[in-house]
Each structure stands twice: as structure tokens, then as C-alpha cells.
């Protein structure tokens, strides 16, 4: 059931020819090494693309915020300031790396590692496209939730290890914010899993289809609200926008990574932006039909059969289309996230917590029960099917 | 009608439920409690009517009976069969009796809502009344002597508690004790009788007893374990002693006059209509046994003596309730006389008619007493000398009282005449056949005369002439028609007419009123023919309760009671003579009392002076009370008591217990010696030392350090596993 990038590639005879050539070359059965090689390459490509997107995220953020505030934003480095993030990166590397004296060296270095680890580990599961998914675990979503809670640990450690009251308080608040917002996120994901009937991203995305009426967001009113609960929770979980209290400049002197300088700080920023992308990607996958392309162009059947293109090209065109649809949806959400950051004011700590526990969690639970009821009562049929299909049937039957 | 549990047992259970509920709520919701008990008895009355209609109007057969039982106790082991069944036994007699008891009880309940209204313990009275009615109904319904005995005792308790209702009055206390004790004497014999029957028959239900009788188990020659008395006589005698106790017959009649301390409705219900009648009902049920035991002559004598004696005492009573009490005793005597002379039907009819008019009499007396309120002593006046001329103030009570007095004194057209005349007729018939029966017959007729005399003496003293206590008379308030005060009286007085019982106006069948079964009472109530009980037609309680009607052939009134032509004629003739004599006697009694008390032409003082010795005797009731106290208690019971005490104290205590004490003392000394020598030194001090040692060791172990405990746990656990694993 769980297809990986290797299983996708192996369906082309080209890949088999390559494997047989390699195994004849090495003498023993090389499929094991080949799969490792493919995975390595895939992972390498994805990490770099994500790093690129993370960097571009900072650029995009500054550009969009400028645009919102009617000003230009960075345009010195490279055309329209595209390479600004590279300049920042180089600056970060050149900066001196200071570790606070009384802090705990081991923890100080471990914190960014955990944060980064938490984000990178999720890439294995994000469904970029039906083939390009690194590995479609059948506990996909659940694994994702687990790993993303590592970021919380990372934040806490950062706060604890830099031995200053502000960062300690920032760390504590950041961690408690992340973990408390994980509850509504988990519950809304749970309702989607309930509807789709499976935890792996493959099943989740395939349960939807290209057209908006088939997406989960419009499946039933509960998932519609669920999407917004998830989105708000995700925002808070990545310490973004209205919830960026822990590292808010005015509040706690940029929170837990006050003491971090240079590259260590860069990793935190990078991790944060990558996590925003991951979160938007998951939102797109779960609620907006992920890599699904309208008229099922994605699986390439159209190209191979109707246009009689060779199977390899046909399938890959389909993949490209799927990638396109996934990236457009995710980047739209990314834009919205940045957009929100420069519009909504920052929440106070108790408002933050009240919003989570007294509003989001009850609503999430209500949605969950709603979805369960929907699944039980309407046998999981979406609103569209119920309203129009049955109407159509009735009309059909009527004549 | 199906005699299922809900229809039949409910009659007795409804008042019992009322009792249970009232017992709890009487303190707070007296009004509610009263209505509950009235409703309960009224619904029992409706159920009883249903049974009566079915028995009398639908089945109308003399051999009809329904016997349903369930297994109450069954601890019979292989060898000793010990099974007790409980159940209900309904035949014509039960149906009539049920109707009478529930009817009279309902009316009395209604009346007592008026009579007891301003009484402090208004609610509690109804609690006892409900319990009593349920006991009585239970007794009437029950199918075996044991359950009769149970309800018998329950009624004894109720009468005890109701007599002692006004416990602040000093007389009430010992009166209730006296009533309870004397009936107890009778009950003891009754129990002995039951045991004797149980011994012979193996079960005490009526059907089994009748079957045993018909199989000759009570034949004359079977002696009771060597006492030389035929078992039938022994059983019959002891059961009859129960009747004597309960129905206040000759030797044990002392308690009934004292029972008047209780509230009047209670004496109306208990000491006039139902409880005392239960004794007679029992002997009627056990009539075949009495016959087998040849006890009838003895019964007749007891009945006659009671009737005549009580009548004579009633002559001299001044308290209105005392007069009625003694008249009850004499009428009961009549019923027992009827049983004695074999007039089964007549005696039962007299029981029913007496219950009705005696209840009416008591209620009328009650309403009289209730209206005579003495302002000085704040009590109700019962003394007839202070009454007189009350008929203008209490018209309705007067009418009711007059009807009942006419009935009781045996004036034609009234129920009393119908039943008493039949008893006297049979007594005369018996006297003709057996020489020995002459005395009861003569006493019977004499008692009839005296009854007429003292009843009318009471009427003249209370209602006619001038009111002797002017001040009391003014205070009386005019009586108006009230539902709960005098309507019950009027209803009861209606039933004193003879036509209801004999179907004919004159009571002798001259003017027939109910065409078909006009002599319904006569035909239905018959001596149980023991022969047809052999087949034990009984049904398990749970069996479907529809009684197949065809078995009981429709019985017609047989003019000649199954006798030959000339015998019937002879009987008829004797009855005719008896009737004429009783009419003459009744009227002469009335006339004499009219002369003495109405017109005051004869001066009663003259006669009392003439027979002054007799008069004093009558006044203190033939010295019975004094006799019992002085002779029976002081002379016989107390000495016996002392003697037994002596044996107990003197012999037993001194030797058995004290002796044992010495033995103990000896042992004690030895033990003490052993104790302080061996035990103290070695054991006690030794253990003390060892405990201190352990203490030290263990205290260190108990360090409170959790990890220490943890290590201990693991080591012990693993060594344990190791031990197990190794073998």
C-alpha cells in the first residue's frame, strides 16, 4: 500500500535496466544500494529545495510586508532582491558564535538540532506528488504530529540552556504554546483521518479529487470549521503571526533565541520558515486536495492513452502537474500566513491560552464528534454528493 | 366469577394494607388515614358483595365450596411428613359471613368518624379497627384451623388494644388485661384441640378433617393415648373451650362486661358483631366433630345457662352499655344453645341477625352517650337513671333503637323472632326426643322472656318518661340527619326486618316474598355432609380459578328437610307450638316492663326488696368476679406459684448451681498457682525481651527511604523467583 519514490520509479523499465546494469557491475544484487541512492538523492533534492523555500520565505516575508505597507522591500541584492536571503545567510555564517558563559554548552547546541530535526523529519512524509512522496508511511499523519512536537522540546531547551530569565520565560511560554496548540491541530487532523479512513497521506489525498467540491474542506460543515481550527492551531504552533509572543521583540527581547547568535540563530529562523511551509503543505494535502489535479490528469493516463505519448513521459507530465497543483496551493496558504502576520495584532499570553483551551479545543472536539456523526449517519458522503447527486438521482428517477 | 387471588384474598388484605399505611402516616395525616381505612373496608365490602352474588344468586347450591391452598411450610423429612398448607375456603356460610362482617364494619367505620372525631387519638383508633377487620376477614376466609388460630390471636390483640384505648382511665387498663387473659385461657384449650386433630388427621384444614371424620378416624373407641377419653370428645371439648373463651360463655364470660371500657364503636364491632361471633362460627365449622364427640348436650347446657344467667344480670344493670353487654352474652348463649340442640342453620342465622341488630343497638347507645355531655365532669353520661325522655331530642336514634329492641326481644316480623324462634323450636324438638334436653329448653324460653323485659326496661328508662337530669337534658343539642352519625343506624335497623332472612314476612313461611328460593338462608346454610369431602376437591392456588359450576347441583328448599312425611309434619307442629309460646312470652315480657317502667304502676323497688338476697347477687354478677379473684387466683394459682418457686429456688439453685461453684473455686486455686509460677516468669518476661529485640532490628528496616524498600522488594522477589525457578 505504501508506495515510495523508489516504487514509483521502479515501474519504468528504464529504472530496471539501470538496476540490472548496476548489479552486473557490482556483482551482487544492487537493488538495495540503488534504493538507498535514490532515497539519498530524493532527500538531498527535497532538503535543498526546502532550504531554498525557507530562505525565499524570509525574502517573501520582507517583500510582502513592504508591499502591504506601501514600501519597496529589499531590491539591492540580485534582481528585485531575490538573493537577499543568501546575503543574510553569508552574514550569519560570518557572525561570531557566542555561547553564554553559565549556560549548558551541550544543551545550547542540541536545541537548534532538535528544532531542525523535527522539521526535516516531516519532509519524509509530505505528499509533494503521488510519486515524489519520499515514503508514504501508513502512520503518516500520526508520525508527523509526533515529530513536530520535537520542535517544542527544541524551543524549551533553547530557552532553558541560554540561562537568562527572559529566554527561560520565553522558552517556557513558547513550548507551552506549541504543545497546547498541538491539541486542536491533532483533533482536526483526527477528523480528517476519520473521514478518509486511513492515516497515510496517500489515502488522505486520494480520498479527495481535483475539484473543490471534492476537497475535504467542503466535504461537510464540520471539516470546513476544522480547516480554520487547524490553520489557526498551525499558526500558533509555528509561533507565527498573532501568536509570536515568545520571540516577540517588544515582549521578551526576542524570546528564547535571545542568546543565539550567528548560524545557530539562522537555523532557528530556517526551521521556523520550513515548518510554516510544512504546515501549509499539510493543510493543502488534508483539506485542499493536495496534489490532486482536476480531470485526473495527475496519473498521466490521459497523456499516455489519448495522446499516445510514451508511458515514461506521460506519467512524468502527470507528476509535474501534481507538483504544480500542490505547490500552488501551499504557496497560496504561505502568502496568507505572511499576510496575517502584518495585519493582526499580537495576542496576550492569557488570551493565547484562553483561545486555545476555551475556544479551539472545544470546537475541535465538536467537529470531531460532528465528523463521526456525519460518517455514521451519511456514510461519509460529502455534502455535494448528498445535495446534488441525490437530487440528480431523484430528478433522474423522477422522469 | 373466578376465585383468583386478587378477588378473594384481597378482601382480607385490603384492610391490612390500610393498617400498614395508616400505622405510618397516622400522626401527620390523620384525615387521610381515616379515609384510607374507610375506603379499604368499603372496597372489601364490594368484593364480598361480588362473592355473595355469585354464591347466592348464581351457584345457589348447598354443597358449593371453593378450596384453594398453597404450600406454606414444607420441612417434611423422609420419615416425618411436616407440611402446612394455607389457603382460602369459601362456601355459602363464608359468603354470608363475609357480607355481614364487611357490611357492619363499613357502617361502624363511618359512624366512628363521627363518634371519635374529637378524640385525641382519632387516627390510632382507625389503625386498630383496620387491623381487626383484616384479622376477622382472614379468619372467615381461612381454610384451616391453624390460620383460624392465627387470626384468632390477632383479634384477641386488637380487642386488648381497643379496650385499653382510653388508657388514662384507670379501669380500662385492667379491663383490657382481663379480657386478654380470659380469652387466652380459651385459646390454650383451642390450641390443644388443634394439636389433637393434627395428631389424628395429619393436617388441620377443614376439608381434611371432614374427610377424616367420614373415614371414621374419629370413631368413638379410639382413645387418646391412654387417657380413657375418646379422641373426638377430647378434641371437640377443647375446641369448644376456645369458643367459650372467645364468645364469653358461662365460665369465662367475665371479661365482656368489662370490655365496655373501650370506645362504643369498638364494642359495637368487636364485642357485639364479629369477634365474639367468631367463637360460634368456629364451633359451627367444627359441628361434625362436635357431633362425633357427643358433646352436643354439654354445649346445649352451657348455652342455656349462659343465656339465662346473663339475662338475669342484665335485669339489674343501670349502665346502658352494661345492659347491652349482658344481652350480647345471653344472645351468644342462645347461639351456642342452637348449636347444642343441632339447629345448625338457626344458630348461624341468629349469629348474623344478632350481629346486625346488636351492632345497631351499640351504635344507638353510642350516639346517645355522645350527645349526653356532662359539663362538670366533662365526660359522657352512660347512667340510665340520669337519662329519660330522650326521644324528642334524639328521634332517629330512638327509631333505630326501637327497631333493634323489637328484633332482639323476638317480636314477629323482625329478624330476632325468625332466628330465636327457630332455635327455641329446635330446642323444644330436642327436648321432646331426649329427656335431658328439657332444662336447656325451659331456660331458653325463660331467657327469651327476660330478654324482652330488660330490653324494654332500657327503652323506657332512656327514651320514655320525663328527663330525670334536667340540666343535662338542656345541654343536649337537637339531633339532625347526619351522614356519619345516624344514617348507619338507620341502614342497620332496616336489616333487622325478618323478611331478609326467611324470605317470608312472618318468618315461618306464611307470606312468601322472594318467589323462587324464598327460604334461601335455610337451604344454603347446611351442616357440612362429611361424606362428600372425601374426594378432596381442592385446587392449588396457582391453578386457574374457574370453578366448574355443574358439579354443584342447584338445591331447592326442601320443605321436609329430607325427613319422612309425618316426621316433617311433627317437626312443623312442634315449631308452630314453639313460635306461639315465644310470641306469648315476648309480649308478656314487654307488657311487664311497660307496667313497671312505663306506667310505673308496679314499683321495681318492691320486687327488689322482695328478692333482696337475689337482687344483691345479681348486682354483683353472681359474685363471679369476686369468686375468681378470691378462689381461683388467691387460693389456687398463687399457692401453685409459690410451690413452683420453692422447688426452683430451694432445690435447684442450692445444689446444682452452688455445687458447681465450689468445683470452679477449686480449679481456680490450682490455676492461680500454676499461672504465677510458670507463666509469669518464663513466658511473659521472655516475650517482652524478645519483642524489644525485634523492635530494634525492625525499626532500622522501617527507614522510610523508598529506595531502600525498592531494593528490598526486588531482592526478595528475585530470590523468590530464583527459588521457584531452581526446583
Amino acid at each position, binding site marked *: 500500500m*505504501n508506495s*515510495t519514490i*523508489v*516504487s514509483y520509479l*521502479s515501474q519504468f523499465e528504464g529504472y530496471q535496466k539501470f538496476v540490472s546494469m548496476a548489479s552486473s557491475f557490482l556483482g551482487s544484487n544492487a*537493488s538495495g544500494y540503488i534504493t538507498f541512492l535514490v*532515497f*539519498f538523492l530524493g*532527500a*538531498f533534492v527535497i*532538503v535543498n529545495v526546502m532550504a531554498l523555500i525557507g530562505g525565499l520565505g524570509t525574502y517573501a516575508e520582507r517583500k510582502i510586508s513592504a508591499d502591504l505597507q506601501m514600501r519597496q522591500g529589499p531590491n539591492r541584492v540580485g534582481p528585485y532582491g531575490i538573493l537577499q536571503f543568501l546575503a543574510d545567510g553569508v552574514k550569519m*555564517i*560570518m557572525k561570531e*558564535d*557566542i555561547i*553564554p558563559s*553559565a549556560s549548558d554548552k551541550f544543551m545550547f*547546541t542540541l536545541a*537548534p*538540532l532538535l528544532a531542525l*530535526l523535527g522539521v526535516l*523529519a516531516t519532509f*519524509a512524509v509530505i505528499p509533494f506528488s503521488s510519486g515524489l512522496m*519520499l*515514503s508514504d508511511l501508513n502512520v503518516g499523519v*500520526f508520525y508527523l504530529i509526533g515529530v513536530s*512536537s520535537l520542535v517544542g522540546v527544541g524551543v524549551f531547551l533553547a530557552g532553558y540552556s541560554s*540561562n*537568562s*530569565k*527572559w529566554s*527561560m*520565560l520565553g522558552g517556557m511560554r513558547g513550548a*507551552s504554546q506549541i504543545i*497546547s496548540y*498541538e*491539541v486542536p491541530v*491533532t*483533533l482536526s487532523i*483526527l477528523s480528517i*483521518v476519520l473521514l478518509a*479512513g*486511513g*492515516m497515510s497521506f496517500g489515502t488522505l489525498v486520494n480520498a479527495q479529487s481535483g475539484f473543490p467540491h471534492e476537497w475535504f474542506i467542503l466535504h461537510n460543515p464540520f471539516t470546513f470549521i476544522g480547516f480554520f481550527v487547524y490553520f489557526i492551531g498551525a499558526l500558533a504552533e509555528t509561533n507565527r503571526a498573532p501568536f509570536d509572543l515568545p520571540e516577540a521583540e517588544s515582549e521578551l527581547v526576542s524570546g528564547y533565541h*535571545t542568546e543565539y547568535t*550567528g548560524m545557530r540563530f*539562522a*537555523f532557528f529562523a530556517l526551521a521556523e520558515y520550513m515548518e510554516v511551509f510544512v504546515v501549509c503543505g499539510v493543510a493543502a494535502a488534508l483539506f485542499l486536495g493536495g496534489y490532486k489535479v482536476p480531470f485526473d490528469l495527475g496519473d498521466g493516463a490521459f497523456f499516455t492513452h489519448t495522446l499516445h505519448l510514451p508511458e515514461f513521459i506521460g506519467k512524468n507530465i502527470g507528476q509535474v502537474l501534481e507538483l504544480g497543483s500542490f505547490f500552488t496551493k501551499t504557496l497560496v496558504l504561505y502568502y496568507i500566513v505572511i499576510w496575517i502576520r502584518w495585519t493582526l495584532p499580537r495576542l496576550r*499570553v*492569557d488570551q493565547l491560552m*484562553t483561545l486555545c*483551551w*476555551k475556544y479551539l*479545543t472545544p470546537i475541535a*472536539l465538536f467537529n470531531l464528534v460532528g465528523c*463521526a456523526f456525519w*460518517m*455514521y449517519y451519511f*456514510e*461519509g458522503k460529502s455534502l455535494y454528493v448528498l445535495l446534488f447527486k441525490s437530487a440528480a438521482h431523484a430528478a433522474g428517477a423522477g422522469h | 366469577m373466578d376465585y383468583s387471588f386478587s378477588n378473594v384474598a384481597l378482601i382480607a388484605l385490603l384492610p391490612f394494607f390500610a393498617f400498614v399505611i395508616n400505622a405510618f402516616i397516622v400522626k401527620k395525616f390523620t384525615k387521610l388515614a381515616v379515609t384510607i381505612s374507610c375506603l379499604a373496608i368499603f372496597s372489601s365490602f364490594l368484593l364480598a358483595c361480588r362473592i355473595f352474588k355469585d354464591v347466592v344468586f348464581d351457584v345457589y347450591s348447598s354443597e358449593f365450596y371453593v378450596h384453594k391452598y398453597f404450600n406454606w411450610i414444607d420441612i417434611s423429612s423422609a420419615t416425618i411428613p411436616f407440611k402446612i398448607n394455607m389457603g382460602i375456603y369459601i362456601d355459602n356460610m363464608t359468603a354470608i359471613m363475609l357480607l355481614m362482617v364487611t357490611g357492619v364494619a363499613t357502617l361502624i367505620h363511618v359512624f366512628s368518624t363521627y363518634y371519635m372525631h374529637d378524640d385525641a387519638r382519632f387516627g390510632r383508633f382507625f389503625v386498630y379497627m383496620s387491623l381487626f377487620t383484616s384479622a376477622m376477614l382472614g379468619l372467615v376466609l381461612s381454610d384451616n384451623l391453624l390460620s383460624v388460630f392465627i387470626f384468632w390471636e390477632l383479634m384477641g390483640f386488637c380487642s386488648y388494644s381497643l379496650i385499653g384505648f382510653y388508657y388514662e382511665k384507670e379501669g380500662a387498663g385492667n379491663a383490657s388485661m382481663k379480657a386478654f387473659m380470659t380469652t387466652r385461657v380459651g385459646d390454650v384449650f383451642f390450641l390443644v384441640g388443634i394439636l389433637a386433630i393434627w395428631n389424628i388427621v395429619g393436617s388441620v384444614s377443614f376439608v381434611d378433617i371432614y374427610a377424616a371424620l367420614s373415614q371414621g378416624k374419629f370413631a368413638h373407641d379410639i382413645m387418646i393415648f391412654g387417657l380413657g377419653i375418646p379422641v373426638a370428645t377430647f378434641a371437640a371439648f377443647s375446641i369448644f373451650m376456645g369458643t367459650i373463651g372467645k364468645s364469653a360463655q358461662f365460665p369465662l364470660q367475665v371479661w365482656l362486661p368489662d370490655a365496655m371500657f373501650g370506645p362504643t364503636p369498638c364494642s359495637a364491632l368487636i364485642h357485639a358483631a364479629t369477634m365474639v361471633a367468631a367463637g360460634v362460627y368456629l364451633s359451627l365449622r367444627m359441628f361434625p366433630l362436635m357431633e362425633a364427640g357427643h358433646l352436643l348436650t354439654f354445649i346445649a347446657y352451657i348455652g342455656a345457662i349462659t343465656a339465662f344467667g346473663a339475662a338475669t344480670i342484665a335485669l339489674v344493670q343501670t349502665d346502658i352499655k352494661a345492659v347491652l353487654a349482658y344481652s350480647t352474652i345471653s344472645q351468644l348463649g342462645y347461639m351456642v344453645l342452637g348449636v347444642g340442640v343441632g339447629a345448625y342453620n338457626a344458630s348461624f342465622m341468629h349469629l348474623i341477625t344478632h350481629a346486625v341488630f346488636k351492632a345497631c343497638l351499640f351504635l344507638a347507645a353510642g350516639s346517645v352517650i355522645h350527645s349526653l355531655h356532662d359539663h362538670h365532669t366533662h365526660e359522657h353520661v352512660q347512667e340510665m337513671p340520669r337519662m329519660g325522655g330522650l326521644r324528642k331530642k334524639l328521634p332517629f336514634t330512638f327509631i333505630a333503637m326501637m327497631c333493634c329492641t323489637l328484633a332482639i326481644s323476638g317480636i314477629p316480623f323482625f329478624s330476632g323472632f325468625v332466628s330465636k324462634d327457630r332455635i327455641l323450636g329446635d330446642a323444644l324438638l330436642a327436648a321432646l326426643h331426649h329427656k335431658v334436653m328439657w332444662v336447656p329448653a325451659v331456660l331458653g324460653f325463660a331467657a327469651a322472656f327476660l330478654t324482652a323485659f330488660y330490653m324494654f326496661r332500657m327503652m323506657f328508662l332512656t327514651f320514655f318518661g320525663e328527663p330525670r337530669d334536667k340540666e343535662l337534658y338542656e345541654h343536649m343539642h337537637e339531633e339532625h340527619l347526619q351522614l356519619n352519625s345516624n344514617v348507619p343506624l338507620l341502614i342497620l335497623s332496616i336489616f333487622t326486618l325478618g323478611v331478609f332472612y326467611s324470605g317470608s314476612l312472618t318468618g315461618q313461611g306464611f307470606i312468601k316474598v322472594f318467589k323462587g328460593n324464598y327460604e334461601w338462608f335455610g337451604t344454603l346454610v347446611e351442616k357440612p355432609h362429611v361424606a362428600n369431602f372425601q374426594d378432596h376437591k381442592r385446587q392449588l392456588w396457582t391453578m386457574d380459578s374457574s370453578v366448574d359450576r355443574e358439579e354443584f347441583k342447584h338445591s331447592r328448599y326442601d320443605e321436609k328437610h329430607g325427613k319422612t312425611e309425618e316426621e316433617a309434619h311433627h317437626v312443623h307442629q312442634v315449631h308452630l307450638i314453639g313460635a306461639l309460646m315465644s310470641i306469648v312470652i315476648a309480649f308478656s315480657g314487654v307488657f311487664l316492663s311497660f307496667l313497671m317502667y312505663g306506667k310505673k304502676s308496679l314499683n321495681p323497688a318492691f320486687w327488689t326488696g322482695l328478692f333482696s338476697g337475689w337482687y344483691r347477687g345479681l348486682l354483683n354478677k353472681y359474685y363471679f368476679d369476686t369468686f375468681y379473684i378470691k378462689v381461683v387466683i388467691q387460693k389456687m394459682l398463687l399457692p401453685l406459684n409459690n410451690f413452683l418457686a420453692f422447688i426452683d429456688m430451694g432445690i435447684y439453685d442450692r445444689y446444682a448451681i452452688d455445687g458447681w461453684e465450689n468445683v470452679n473455686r477449686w480449679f481456680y486455686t490450682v490455676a492461680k498457682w500454676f499461672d504465677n509460677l510458670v507463666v509469669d516468669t518464663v513466658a511473659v518476661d521472655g516475650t517482652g525481651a524478645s519483642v524489644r529485640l525485634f523492635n530494634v532490628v525492625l525499626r532500622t528496616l522501617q527507614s522510610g527511604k523508598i529506595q531502600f524498600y525498592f531494593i528490598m522488594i526486588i531482592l526478595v522477589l528475585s530470590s523468590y523467583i530464583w527459588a521457584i525457578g531452581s526446583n
Partner: protein
Amino acid sequence: MASHGLDVYMPIIILMAFAVIMIVGALLVGRILRPHNPNALKESAYECGEEPIGIAWSNFNVRFYVVSLIFIIFDVEGALMFPVAAVFKKFASIGLGAPVFASFVLFILILFSGVIYCWKKGDFDWVKSYRIPSSK
């Protein structure tokens, strides 16, 4: 031909390796390029310019713990509910929807009652909401 087997976990291992490599690599590269002259002032924790006073680990309000407590309870609840949710569709399709739905909702209700309890007892309101005990 594609022995999925445990290959599915290979990318996770590889990605984690990537994360480690990036961190260590960046630090090593930095160590070479970065100026390195630590002095006490720079190394002291930033205190808006003043001297840092006291240790950082002063006792914090227990609220943080209560939040993490409720998180872990819901976390475990999620863990238990995920398989049930995943299987819900299958059970519903074979007609067993009602009992599964009932047990599912019962599970949630029981835990939600816990949330309500905490809510009423004021564990969620972050600011010290001390209810002044009524004066009587």
C-alpha cells in the same frame, strides 16, 4: 521487485542524518571563518544592558505544568483515537457504524468532561485569577 519492507524508514534516517550534518557542518565552517575573541561582557546573558541578577531558574508558576498535563492527556487520547478513526470508515461501510460511533463519542465525552472540570476550576485562565473568597 520493490522490497518495500523497511525501506519506508530509510528516508527518515537519511533526513535525520542530513539535519545533523547541516548543524555540524555549519558550525565547523563557522568555526573556521568566524572571529573568536570571547570576553566576559559578551558572554554574559543579555539583560537589557544591565548586569544579569539572580539565577534563571526561579520557580515558575505551576500553570505551565497544568497545560502540559492536559496536553499529554489529549496526546494519549489522540494516540488511542487515531486507529479507531482510521478504521471507522471500514466499520461504517459494513454497517457497524452505530456502536463504533457510540463508543467513539463516549470516549470523547468522558475526556471532554475532564476539560470542563479543569475549565470550571480555572486551570485554563492564565492570569492569576484568585477568586477573593466571599467575605462572610
